[in-house]
């Protein structure tokens, strides 16, 4: 076996160890590189900034723990921005497994940091089953879909819900999404029927396919992956996990590029040797 073949058939575990190191080491030796702001994130920031005070922002928690490292920082930053502008927040989710994540975010940011009151400044309706179909009904009649909030309170007993009856009530809808059901359903079944401002925060897996909707104006903003979340953290000036994570991202990305280059060098040398 030649050296090339040996490297080419490198035990996967060696690659695994280098990846782990690339992510761990920057935690101990931070680089603190500045994060630049991209247009799709700035657009969303401007929309929230320009909404009249007291507008209702719907935040849909369409992710579960496996999307949390990327989407939690985005959710928290957007909530901070909304509360600082005195907007009201309506939380729901298309994934049952994400409900506690939404509750935790509202409690920490709403009740904890901004002293907001449940039922007046924000509500949480938890999991809404039915995906796309539920969204069609939601836009038409919010009270029919959201009968009880996450604590079991009937919708008619919540003061904030008095004026929230249909899609018209929402100044902005934000889907924090990691798959199906998620932003696709919000675009195709909700926005196509009820219009209004719709934006999305995506894991880096989903984000690339939403640029086409950004161009048509179906989306008014896009937070893509941990980088997008780090940008939003910078915009609201409250740094968290996404910003810390950027260093690990930098090194891991470089490592993967190095592996691609190495793989190709071997490939070409091998090819030459055979000729």
């Amino acid at each position, binding site marked *: 076996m030649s050296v090339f073949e040996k490297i080419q058939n490198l035990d996967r575990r060696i690659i695994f160890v280098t990846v782990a190191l690339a992510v761990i080491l920057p935690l*101990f030796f931070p680089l603190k590189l500045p994060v630049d702001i991209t247009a799709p994130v700035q657009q969303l920031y401007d929309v929230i900034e320009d909404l009249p005070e007291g507008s209702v922002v719907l935040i849909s928690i369409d992710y579960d723990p*496996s999307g949390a*490292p990327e989407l939690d920082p985005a959710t928290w930053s957007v909530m901070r921005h909304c509360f600082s502008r005195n907007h009201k927040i309506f939380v729901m989710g298309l994934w049952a497994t994400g409900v506690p994540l939404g509750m935790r975010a509202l409690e920490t940011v709403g009740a904890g940091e901004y002293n907001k009151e449940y039922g007046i400044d924000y509500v949480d309706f*938890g999991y809404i089953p039915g995906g796309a179909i539920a969204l069609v009904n939601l836009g038409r009649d919010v009270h029919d879909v959201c009968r009880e909030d996450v604590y079991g309170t009937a919708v008619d007993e919540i003061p904030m819900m008095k004026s929230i009856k249909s899609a018209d009530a929402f100044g902005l809808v934000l889907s924090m999404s990691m798959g199906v059901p998620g932003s696709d359903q919000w675009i*195709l079944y909700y926005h196509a029927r009820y219009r209004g401002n719709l934006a999305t925060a995506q894991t880096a897996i989903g984000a690339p396919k939403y640029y086409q909707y950004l161009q048509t104006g*179906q989306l008014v903003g896009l937070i893509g992956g941990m980088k997008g979340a780090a940008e939003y953290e910078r915009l609201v000036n409250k740094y968290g996990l996404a910003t810390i*994570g950027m260093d690990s991202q930098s090194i891991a990305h470089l490592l993967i590029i190095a592996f691609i280059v190495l793989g190709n060098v071997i490939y070409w040398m091998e090819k030459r040797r055979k000729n």
Partner: protein
Amino acid sequence: MTSGVWVWIAGALTLAIYSFLYKDNPFYKVAEYIFVGLSAGYWAVYLFWNFAYPNLFQPLFSEGNYWNIIPLALGFMMFTQLSRRSAWLVRFPLTFVLGVSLGLQLIAAVEGDVVPQLAGTFEPFSRGALFNTYDFWTSIGYIVLLVGVLSTLVYFFFSREHKGVFGGIARTGVFYLMIAFGASFGYTVMARVSLLFGRVHFIFHDWLHIIR
């Protein structure tokens, strides 16, 4: 919420999953089966309290909305597929669900995708905007976008051989596809690394308190 004994449980389970990277082993298997059982239970609990109870049972039993018997009956028919003899009964709820969802999917594809995406492709081409409003790279971008959409559409033609001019356009489509897949792959790396970062941060910060 994450403290004391609990954080050690979380930590141990995290390591048990990572042991799969070395090779499949009993620790990983235990963690996997716990996960599968737990999440199935979680879904059932949530679905009951957050949906079935307020939206199905309460209207039926407390408010006397007897129409809700229909979805309940159809829902229970789903269970007939568990036995071979009655399995055909599942067709009733299945076709109901399919009828509604396919109808909506069909409309959504036209209303949410086809109409706005077609319009969005030529909408930027108003004379004034193309030459004055946008900056240079954006104008070029819109032309690139137009060529790309047309050539990828041509690539997806199945009833004509990709030859001659037609084949040339289809090949351009392939180039676009490759750029898009490459770009998406590059973009996606972040998602995968984020998850690993999240766990590593948990291990060293929340669990072992090695970093602040």
